[in-house]
């Protein structure tokens, strides 16, 4: 009996091990080599296809991650910080050794669409294939043709900065089962062509959701929370709700305001700064008016989510708010106006501004500390800027001013405290 029991235990253990192996082994098979590709190499040299690809690569803002600060464009090297470790973006230029020079289109498609690398390895979702999976096959081909047309740059990718267990790529199998749904964008026939184009760009190549959503402890995104705003991990900026929600969403924004912000960096409702300034400067300002209108059409159709009731703090904030009002009058009102409505085309309104009202207060704290320029765009080549107050205001003064701004006029957002200011005093550079 004893022997039988042992055999049963061994068999059960083996069964579990086999199951785990079946589950965790690479799901991807290596794609075909460049030589065996079904795509004719000459067809990739079509200038029309390359031009289309260049536009789409700009829409996808691929250069933002795949270019190091001061480095060659698309040659990789920028490190994407995640709560699990640093993930450097690889070289996309057609260098045979260090870039995509040896890749077939099939391999590129598998990476973009399915998040699987050339050797069949599962890719980390810092590469936003969770969004890019919606990109159409034709668009992906154009992007590949454009990337292959670039001058090759020999630049080896930096090693991954991940520790156990995150450095075990097969652990992504479980992550993918929870959070990744593969599939191209499916048009909604009940909606207009512009709406569908907007949805395709926002959900797919534009990968807006990668920032504008709250992520859980595993870095996953819940589909039902798409575009509802969230704190960007590690970078620690808040990407606001893109629905028409009041207090932190795009309530009151006209379609033209969305187009203006994406095209010039400024709108009557707010100005792009922080990571969004980079998106505007490098990507959206170069988009066609039709595509920008399409994005606006789609975003304006997003229903406002049920509003979270504004809870007044149990603390007595009177003296704090009075102090904030005094600082506002001395330091801020000259540009943003006593009424918080800013100056059209110059200084953004703070009253009703989604970045002022977002739930965390991070954006307002950081903008007060850092000041800075809106993005330089063709539509706004010499933007007006804001002075940094980091050297002039104490943590409690910043907290008071930000709390005042978040509760003045029509704004209804929670107070921020000194400890929140201390947390975000360092300057985010990359």
């Amino acid at each position: 009996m004893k022997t039988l029991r042992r055999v049963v235990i061994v068999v059960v253990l083996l069964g579990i091990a086999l199951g785990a192996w079946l589950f965790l082994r690479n799901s991807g098979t290596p794609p075909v080599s460049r030589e065996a590709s079904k795509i004719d190499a000459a067809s990739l040299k079509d200038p029309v296809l390359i031009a289309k690809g260049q536009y789409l690569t700009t829409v996808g803002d691929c250069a933002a991650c795949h270019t190091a600060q001061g480095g060659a464009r698309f040659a990789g090297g920028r490190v994407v910080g995640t709560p699990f470790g640093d993930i450097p973006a690889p070289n996309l230029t057609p260098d045979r050794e260090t870039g995509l020079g040896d890749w077939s289109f099939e391999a590129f498609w598998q990476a973009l669409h399915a998040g699987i690398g050339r050797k069949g390895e599962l890719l980390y979702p810092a590469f936003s294939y969770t969004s890019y999976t919606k990109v159409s096959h034709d668009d992906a081909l154009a992007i590949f043709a454009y990337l292959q047309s670039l001058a090759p740059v020999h630049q080896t990718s930096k090693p991954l900065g991940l520790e156990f267990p995150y450095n075990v790529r097969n652990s992504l199998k479980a992550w993918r089962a929870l959070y990744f749904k593969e599939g191209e964008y499916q048009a909604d026939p009940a909606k207009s062509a512009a709406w569908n184009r907007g949805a395709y760009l926002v959900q797919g190549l534009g990968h807006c959701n990668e920032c504008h959503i709250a992520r859980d402890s595993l870095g996953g995104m819940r589909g039902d929370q798409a575009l509802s705003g969230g704190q960007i991990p590690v970078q620690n900026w808040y990407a606001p709700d893109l629905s028409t929600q009041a207090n932190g969403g795009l309530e009151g924004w006209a379609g033209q305001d969305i187009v203006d912000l994406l095209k010039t960096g400024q709108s009557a409702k707010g100005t792009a700064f922080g990571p969004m300034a980079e998106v505007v400067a490098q990507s959206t300002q170069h988009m066609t008016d039709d595509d920008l209108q399409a994005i606006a059409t789609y975003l304006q159709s997003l229903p406002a989510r049920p509003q979270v009731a504004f809870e007044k703090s149990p603390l007595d904030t009177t003296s704090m708010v009075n102090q904030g009002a005094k600082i506002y009058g001395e330091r801020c009102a000259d540009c943003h106006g006593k009424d918080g409505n800013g100056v059209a085309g110059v200084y953004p309104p703070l009253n009703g501004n989604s970045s002022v009202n977002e739930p965390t207060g991070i954006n307002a704290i950081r903008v007060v500390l850092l000041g800075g320029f809106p993005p330089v765009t063709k539509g706004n080549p010499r933007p007006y800027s804001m002075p940094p107050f980091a050297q002039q205001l104490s943590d409690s003064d910043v907290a008071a001013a930000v709390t005042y701004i978040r509760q003045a006029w029509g704004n209804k957002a929670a107070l921020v405290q000194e400890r929140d200011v201390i947390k975000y005093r360092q300057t985010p550079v990359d």
Partner: protein
Amino acid sequence: MRHDVAKPQLSRFHAGVTQGRAYNRGMDTIAKLCQARRVFSAVLLFALITAGSAARAQETGAPKVPNTLQQRIASCTGCHGVHGEGTPESGFFPRLAGKPAGYLARQLKDFQDGLRKYGPMEYTVRHLSPEYMHEIADYFAAQEVPYARSPLPRVSPEALKRGEELATKGDPSREVPACIACHGTELTGVQPNVPGLVGLPYDYLSSQLGSWRTKTRATVAPDCMAEIANRLSASDISAVSAWLAGRELPSDMHAQPAGTITPPLHCGVLGATGDGA
């Protein structure tokens, strides 16, 4: 810093009303004298329209914003001063006024590319275009601001002598060229790319030499100042910084004309001709 921003609308409105009344009274007298009713009516109409639009402007409360570069670059002047005077008493925010435009534009680009490391500057210039950076550089280069003296550290006469020797003769044994070889005979810089070294605080000078050694300040290769800074000893850095910071200022602090130096090293920042011209 608040001096460079627009006055609130309210005071402008009051000023407008006062001026309007005085103007009205004056014109009233003229109208009586001339008996020209049409002129009077026209003036009255003008005054009403002006007052009306002023009242509307007050309702919106929008501040009036000067359309000047100075107003646009509050992000720069907040720390460096409206005219780029810096903070000579502490040396923390460097003076920008009167530095050669090519040099200033290069620094902005180096911050943008992460060659020169300082978070707040890297963040601020991140998305500026080359054109805008040159315009900003030109603005500060054109500012004429008197030079203020900064506090000097206590250094021995020997150290000052060593500093003077390095600045004016260099140290051939360490292959250190004299500062004057590149930075001008009066050390006031050379157009358009070489900054002056006199009139700067000790803390600023010594920390720049230090940052070339710690690679938090770099520029396009060949980065000859990095090479020179690494050939200096720590005591040399103190000595030359102290001598430069304490040096009597020449009557003309402007950078000397382009093409008037022959640099002993090939420097990336000086371009193909080597003299920056």
